[in-house]
């Protein structure tokens, strides 16, 4: 397959993307703590959106949006802190790493070698996932969403 012909739709559909994100949560929080695929799940605002860009065999962005409340609880557990002690740096670090590992695993499925940017994290009140590959998931009482955006 040539780089021109490669699209993420060839190798990463909604189910594969959901599986990738679920595995990220297992890696961070342990066996049995994966996220469940729940198509159509929409996370509650305020949101934290982690993103990484892929360039090469496919050009685009891998995004993961989760409620700030979910990220705060997850960061508190991971860093062994009270939720009130979790700061913005902790939230950015965790959500950025979730996007980074998800993006890296999407990249590894592409037919041609590609490059991955460092993650960036933004706040949002509205989910702006475009049509295309997208996965709604559910983790620890919260909906989250991952999606791919072609450049």
């Amino acid at each position, binding site marked *: 397959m040539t780089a021109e012909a490669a699209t993420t739709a060839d190798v990463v559909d909604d189910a594969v993307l959901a599986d990738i994100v679920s595995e990220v949560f297992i*890696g961070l929080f342990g066996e049995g703590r994966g996220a469940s695929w729940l198509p159509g799940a929409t996370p509650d605002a305020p949101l934290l959106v982690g993103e990484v860009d892929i360039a090469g065999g496919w050009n685009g962005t891998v995004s993961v949006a989760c409620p700030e409340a979910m990220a705060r609880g997850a960061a508190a557990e991971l860093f062994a802190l009270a939720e009130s002690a979790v700061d913005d740096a902790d939230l950015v670090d965790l959500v950025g*790493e979730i996007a*980074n590992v998800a993006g890296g695993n999407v990249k590894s499925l592409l037919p041609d070698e590609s490059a991955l940017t460092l993650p960036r994290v933004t706040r949002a009140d509205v989910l702006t996932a475009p049509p295309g590959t997208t996965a709604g998931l559910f983790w620890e009482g919260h909906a989250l969403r991952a999606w791919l955006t072609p450049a």
Partner: protein
Amino acid sequence: MRALVIDDSRAVRVLVRRIVERHGFEVREAGDGQQAIDVIDEGWKPDIALIDWNMPVMDGLGFVTTVRARRELRDITLMMVTTEGETPRIVRALAAGAHEYLVKPFTEDALVAKLELLGFQAQPMVAS
């Protein structure tokens, strides 16, 4: 046993630190390859470095190359722990001098298996 955990994500450093401490390692952390070199140059030489690939300042491949170029550091075991899972990347890291490669996400069992494969058997915790 000493382990140097090198990753720009604090979440990953915390996760890896927990696992390797349970395995009996004394642990220090660095947020990028240059910080890791600084830790070593301060006199804290690890038995193993667990190295992310994509980091600011000096990435994991740069760290591996730097360590392998210094004769006095050649006995440090180098293990990449990274989301970079494509075969060409793995080959590049191994060719540069990394001994092992673990792709994120990983489980505790997988990391411990790699440590044992490299000859680092679990040590009993010693109260300080």
